[in-house]
């Protein structure tokens, strides 16, 4: 392989995402611009939200977001928080990312009543009234005057399937 050709992803270290697809060196790696555009287009989370953050890949397709910047690659055990699973047809935000930044979402947020929210937190699927897009939605619950995100649900065929991981179910 020449110095200029694509290189493989090294799964066990943190590499900063390239700013744009044109700057990509690692095969299959998404660009920062694609991540920020996805969050804007899918959920309406403004790109400026992440003006002071950088995005990193560690593990195949697992994207992390951290405040500030570091030399890349950086040999640490954790960098900010996981935010997104890429390298698959439909990207999926993490529960923790949605709880942190999902209150800034302006679309694809399904607000659940307390009974439905409780069911959502068990990891079950349930029928919901939703006439928006299919795919991954922010599952939220109305409290103290505004929707508060709980996690991610996959909406298809009138059903919302909770993606809340085992360790966060209740």
């Amino acid at each position, binding site marked *: 392989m020449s110095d200029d050709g694509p290189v493989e992803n090294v799964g066990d270290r943190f590499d900063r995402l390239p700013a744009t697809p044109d700057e990509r060196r690692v095969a299959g790696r998404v660009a920062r611009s694609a991540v920020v555009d996805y969050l804007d287009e899918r959920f309406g989370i403004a790109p400026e939200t992440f003006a002071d953050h950088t995005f990193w890949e560690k593990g195949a397709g697992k994207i992390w977001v951290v405040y500030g910047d570091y030399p890349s690659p950086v040999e640490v*055990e*954790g*960098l900010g928080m996981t935010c997104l699973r890429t390298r698959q047809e439909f990207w999926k935000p993490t529960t923790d990312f949605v709880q*942190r930044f999902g209150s800034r979402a302006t679309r694809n947020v399904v607000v659940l009543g307390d009974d439905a929210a409780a069911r959502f937190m068990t990891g079950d699927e349930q029928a919901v009234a939703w006439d928006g897009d299919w795919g991954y939605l922010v599952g939220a619950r109305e409290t*103290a005057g505004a929707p508060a995100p709980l996690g991610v649900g996959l909406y298809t065929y009138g059903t919302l399937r909770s993606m809340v991981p085992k360790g966060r179910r209740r």
Partner: protein
Amino acid sequence: MNPLDRYEPLVDDPAAFRAACSRPLPTTVRVNTVKAGVDRVCRALAEEGVAHERVGWAGDLLRLPDSSPGDSWAFAHGWLHGQEEVSALPARALDPAPGERVWAACAAPGSKATHAAALMDDRGVVVANDSSLGRLSALRHNAERLGVTATTVTRADARSYSLAPFEFEAFDRALVDVPCSCEGTVRKNPDVVDEWTMDHVESLAELQTDVLRRAVQATRAGGTVVYSTCTFAPEENEAVLDGVLAAEDCHVVEWTPPEGLETSPGVTEWAGDEYDPQVGRATRVYPHQNDTGGFFCARLEAGG
């Protein structure tokens, strides 16, 4: 021998001290201000009928008289973190500002490091380090659940910590909350007094001294280092400070604990030893003073 016997000469009211040590701890939580403000969280708790009281000396702490931390919707949203009241003291003593670089030397499971990040409005660098892989997993889990983006996790021996992964050469502040004999947690873990030995105290003191020395070295001149433990043992507290004051370029600064928190000063004499008078500026918290666990905390300035 019950190690608590040793400390009766240090406290103003030994009977109240012993009585408090034998009672269970009240349940407290810290509001995760990275995700939601304290007023909103209190309103949400009230809506779902969860009794809560604000802790007077700490704006982000709530007592839950009737429930466990994990029982509420507020917890499910990641708005609460179970944290003993007095363990919220060191991040306040550290007083980090947004944009600063902070080292949490022995950070797992991460309550105090994530608290520091929250006080920085989740802006800056909080390097949360621990040497144990098992404890790191708890640290990472907590940092993720709380949604902290300013935290970087490393696994290294704090005594010989290297800043090589980073592009900076010193931290602005360091939080040195060291492993200790933990007598101050007796209300939560009554076994600590049965497992206590002087040999263990002595080996811990050596480790604590080495970690604190490294923290002073890794902090820029004029930067702040907070040393804290949850033990009453002067060997692990003032004596450690005394040794580090003699070996490194630093001093203990006057620090006024938050209003409403009753405290005692550091001890300058113990078991026939006299310490540098500066250690009297440290803060001791005994369980009977505020109905909490026991704690020790000192604020140092590195360099000059």
